[in-house]
């Protein structure tokens, strides 16, 4: 049974950023967000094949100030076809993985393309569907090489360092999101195994959190994982359409289904579109979840404030939690209460 708790003791809802638009300020099926230099946020919209012009990275800040877009569909410099994961390095450069072109794109803080690296294949150092990415404490890039069912670590310029996660207890199955703890340990959203796998900095498997299911401490196709300075683990439990928080030992803390409100960009849209704003004000966008047969996908489709397609979770330096939702074209932001 799906937990539908929305009141949070551990996390407090802050606000929502985003709006679904085809171009410019807003998103179209966003899948990840990188928090770069000077608080600038970069969210990549995967868009979809017949609408490749809508694929882009949108730059903005916590106050919803918009700085422009960059990137686009293709195979050239600064282009991607299936962007999936994002990470910013210490200089503020933004790295974007591309599952179709099998490579990592690098952009400046301002969105200027710098270079890309990566080649398709199954050998060490080659990629088959690079998904989530994250920098470790030595500024090496950890990549979820999802169709090769492993994690690979590269230097920033793409030199292969190591691979792991494809044997024994730590054997991964289509991993998606990754993050790195303060001790350089690597956490992996082990998507098809319904768990979070943890490795030490040399790639040795340490332990796994969670089992298959939708109860407390259980996961269904987790997509993203983040760890804060105290070791709390935040998981976008994608198949259950929720955010799950565990403590550093894997003990369950709480679950959130989402509390989105109207974003600043959406508010501005409604100010100029009374024809939509007026009937919306008379609508019920929070129907009883019980009528959807216990299917979290349908519950989230109908209840607008719920997470729908939460594909990534990130934490900024001040401890804010950012959940990117592909199916709602927005980012929900939370803060810790303690």
């Amino acid at each position: 049974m799906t937990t539908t708790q929305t009141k949070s003791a551990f996390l407090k809802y802050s606000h929502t950023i985003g709006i679904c638009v085809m171009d410019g300020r807003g998103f179209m099926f966003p899948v990840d967000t990188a928090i770069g230099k000077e608080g600038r946020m970069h969210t990549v919209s995967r868009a979809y094949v017949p609408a490749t012009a809508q694929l882009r990275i949108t730059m903005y800040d916590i106050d919803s100030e918009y700085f422009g877009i960059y990137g686009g569909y293709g195979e050239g410099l600064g282009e991607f076809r299936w962007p999936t994961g994002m990470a910013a390095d210490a200089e503020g450069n933004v790295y974007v993985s591309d599952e179709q072109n099998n490579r990592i794109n690098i952009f400046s803080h301002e969105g200027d393309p710098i270079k890309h690296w990566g080649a398709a294949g199954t050998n060490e150092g080659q990629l088959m569907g690079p998904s989530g990415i994250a920098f470790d404490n030595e500024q090496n890039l950890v990549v979820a090489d999802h169709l090769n069912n492993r994690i690979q670590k590269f230097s920033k310029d793409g030199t292969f360092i190591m691979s792991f996660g494809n044997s024994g207890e730590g054997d991964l199955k289509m991993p998606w999101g990754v993050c790195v703890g303060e001790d350089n340990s690597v956490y992996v959203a082990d998507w098809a195994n319904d768990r979070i796998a943890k490795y030490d900095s040399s790639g040795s498997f340490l332990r796994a959190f969670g089992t298959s299911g939708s109860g407390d401490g259980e996961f269904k196709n987790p997509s993203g994982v983040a760890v804060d300075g105290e070791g709390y683990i935040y998981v976008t439990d994608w198949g259950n359409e929720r955010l799950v928080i565990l403590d550093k030992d894997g003990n369950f803390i709480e679950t959130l289904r989402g509390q989105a409100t109207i974003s600043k960009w959406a508010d501005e849209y409604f100010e100029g579109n009374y024809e939509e704003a007026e009937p919306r004000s008379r609508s019920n966008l929070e129907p009883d979840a019980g009528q959807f047969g216990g299917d979290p996908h349908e519950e989230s489709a109908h209840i607008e404030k719920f997470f729908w397609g939460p594909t990534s979770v990130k934490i900024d330096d001040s401890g804010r939690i950012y959940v990117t939702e592909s199916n709602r074209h927005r980012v929900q932001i939370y803060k810790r209460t303690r």
Partner: protein
Amino acid sequence: MVTTSPNIKLMAHLLRRAGFGSTKEQLDEYLSVGYEKVVDGLIDDLDSSRINDALVRRYFPDQSVTHDTSGAGSYWLYRLVSTDSPLREKIALFWHNVFATGYTKVTNGKPMSDQLRMFRSHGLGKLDELLLKLSKDPAMIIWLDNVDNHDGAINENYGRELLELFSMGVGNYSEDDIKECSRAFTGWSIANSDYIKELAIRNSIMPYGKLAWRYEYKEDDHDDGEKTFLGRKGNFNGEEIIKIICEQPATARFISRHLYHFFVADEPPVPSWPYKDPQDMGAISILEKAYFDSGYDIGEMIRVLFKSDFFKSETCHYKKIKSPAELAGNVLRTTEEFGTPNIRISERNSQVTFMGQQLLNPPSVEGWHQGLEWIETGSLTERVNFASQHLGDLSKPGVRKIVGNVIAQAGDSMSAEECVDQCLSQLGAIQTSDYIHNTLIEFAEENGISDIDFLKDKNTAAQKISEVMSVVASVPEFQQS
């Protein structure tokens, strides 16, 4: 020409009609089960959720949301080419054509996808339950304006089409019956109807993508007064109207004729049915009896149909023209291009549109006219190119497998005729006319098949066989079902 046993021909016929064709490998597997059991297995397979939706949604957020025809259509095409429960998808195609609902007015892919999911779940069940689901289906409520059907101010659109196109057919009810039927469905609406209508008109995706729709009964907008419908009197609501509709012999005839039209042989377009008798009245009578005997059960009607002599008769083999979706399903299942979801499914969905069938967007409430109307100059070229291009493409795993099977039969050489017969067999025991068969042999001969040393030059052999496959895909019998 190799003589194909009647059992093989019959099983291949069933798999073309109940599914999307078969390769020799699949055919052999079904033959080992036996015809009657295969029919029962196809109908009784209640698991309509075998597709790995999580995998699709991970790669394609647009297919998770299905906010437009591209995502929703691509998702359905992926199901057609990857399901191991083909009759479920086939019955969804059937009802999608009978209860034709179009994106042009709905302007939201999710309710359309929800409707198809309902067809998969209930399309092989009882007609009265299906019509009840249909009457509560949000896409249908918008498509035929029941959202504007109010107590004291009826909108007849849904009431009319329920009788004319969805159950009884023209000539079996009066204009007054339409009005009374419409009164009974007042208040059958959707939640947030004013907002949804506005969003649909503006095709708006803001602020957070298109809204999901859900049925809502508005009791205070329902006309609870007495109605007279098909000679009966009562304070009918929609449920009673559907019950009365399903009791009518005209409904049995109409549904039987649709099933015959879809699964057995092309009938004339539906608008001419009031004026033209069914081509096989005996078959229709058998189906009508099955309709009443089973309590209006569509699955039971189809079971009777597939096990009947009129379906098994070779006189109806290859008498239907595959719809573009059926053709694409057949080709792409054979090529195995979509073992896992990939970015090309959207392009293939566009190709189905170019062949004349945009999934989730039929041309009108009458659906697509089938039969020869699938074939016109432009669409025929697209169909032939589509089948030839994909089945002749050695980069596709399914094509490589079939070509390998043909080579394995060759020894050190193979005559042109042997090669053609092997290709026809591998593509699902396709039977051609003598003229077509001889033409294919001529092509294979000119292509140098018989000159190849199959042991020494497997690459050339594979290339040449794939070229024969490409031509086989263009023959009329491959385009037919």
